[in-house]
Every structure is written in C-alpha cells, then in structure tokens.
C-alpha cells in the first residue's frame, strides 16, 4: 500500500507567467507515464486551478511534480505548498460557488472532482498545502 516516488520535480511559482511552464512540465510527466489524454486534461486543469489559488491568495509558492507508484498503479502526485494567510474554514472553501475573491468559487471543489485523491491542510498565518493524485487509469 506504500506510495513510492519515482521522480521529483520542484518548481517555484511566483508570477502568473510561471503557470504555463508549470502546466507544460505536468504534461511532460503525464505523457511519460502514458496517461490518457482525458486524464491529462483533467489533471492539468485541476493543477491550473490550484496554482492560480496559490498565486491569488498567497502570492505564489512551491510546487512538486512526482511520478509515483502504488502496487500496480502509476500516477502523478502534485503538491502545492504556500506560506500565505491560510484558509480559515476549509469545509466552506470546498463548497461549490464559495469564494472570498471575485471568482466563480469552482477552484477547490472543481479540482477535487477532477482527480483521484485530494488532500488539503491549512494553518492560519502559516500557509496551505494541497496534494492531488491522478492515476494513469483512474
């Protein structure tokens, strides 16, 4: 049941222009493990939502792209870690249509729907970390 990381790619996101190279890097990794086009699209879309949140609410942060295996599964794990203000009420932030900004409020719940595993931890004043996993055939 253990997850083993086969490769690890770290990217800093500080400006909006960093988003496109980041998305491309995610895609390269997904192509490497022969993820279907649909799953690639879902993963990259989820990544795009999360990276935008990081830029908007925390002024950027660090992303980690990993190729992982668990038993017979292969997939991509993405980590988004920021040192922003944190999310006071995660349950509320995970609801569709909730936004403190002027967005549609689809970012977090939408991203969760697009991936196989989604974990979020946040501490007020310290930052937020979101980890998502998309399996090749998930």
């Amino acid at each position: 049941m253990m997850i083993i990381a086969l490769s690890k790619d770290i990217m800093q996101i500080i400006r909006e222009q960093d988003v496109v190279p980041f998305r491309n890097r995610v895609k390269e990794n997904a192509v490497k493990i022969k993820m279907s086009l649909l799953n690639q699209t879902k993963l990259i879309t989820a990544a795009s939502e999360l990276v935008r949140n990081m830029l908007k609410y925390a002024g950027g942060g660090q992303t980690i792209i990993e190729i992982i295996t668990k038993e017979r599964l292969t997939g991509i794990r993405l980590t988004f870690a920021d040192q922003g203000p944190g999310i006071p009420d995660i349950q509320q932030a995970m609801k569709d249509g909730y936004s403190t900004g002027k967005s549609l409020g689809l970012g977090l719940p939408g991203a969760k729907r697009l991936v196989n595993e989604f974990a979020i931890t946040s501490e007020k004043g310290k930052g937020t970390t979101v980890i998502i996993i998309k399996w090749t055939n998930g």
Partner: protein
Amino acid sequence: MDKIPILRMGHFLLVTIQVDLYDQLALNLESDLVQMVNKTQAKGVLIDISAVSIVDSFMGRIIGNIASMSRILDAQTVVVGMQPAVAITLIELGLPLTGVHTALNVERGMTLLKEKILIGDYDEDDETGDDDNSAE
C-alpha cells in the same frame, strides 16, 4: 506583451487562440475583443479554441464574459472546435458554459452565426413595424 490577433471579416470578428493562455493574456483578449466589437460594429464573434488543450474556470469565465459583453453590444458569439477532453473536463469542473453558443468547427460556427444574425434582423424589422402601428 503577447497578444491574440483579432481578424475582421465583413460583419464578423475571428479569433483563433493558438497558444495556452495565461490569465493576463485572456483578460487582454476580453477587453480587445469588446473594444473591437464596438469599433467595427461587428455582428458576430467567432472564437476558435481547437488548439487550446485546457480550459479552466478562469478561461471559462472569460469566454462567458466575452459572450455576455458582446450580446449587450448587439453581437453574437460562437465558440468552435473545443476538444472532447476539454468539454468533459469543463462539465466535471462544474462549468457548463451556459449562454455561450458553440459549434463543432469553424464552418458550422459561421453558419450558426449567419443564422443568428438573420433572425436578429427579422426581429428588429418586426419591432419597428409594431412601433409604427402604435404611433398611428
């Protein structure tokens, strides 16, 4: 600064998005397009997104905005060429793009735009007719 070109063809404006958009680029496209609609008095806007590999909630919102803003300026918007994977992802994300006309390809998109504009003209004539009657 990158820019997405907007082509004018008769009453229509054509936009082909060939690069992956970052947020500012999408925002610029939105304001450029709306200004072009106003300046050229275009009746229709056709946006080809066949080369766009992902549409997230921000891009989706921009597309919706362009359609609503153009409608207020009396122009119809049709989005064409969406990749199937993008369509599936948009729905799962929770963004059904209601209020945006879509077509499978540029050709069908043009036909749809022409139909919409014809119907629009007919309605206008109808209304003026009614006005004349009430004046009498």
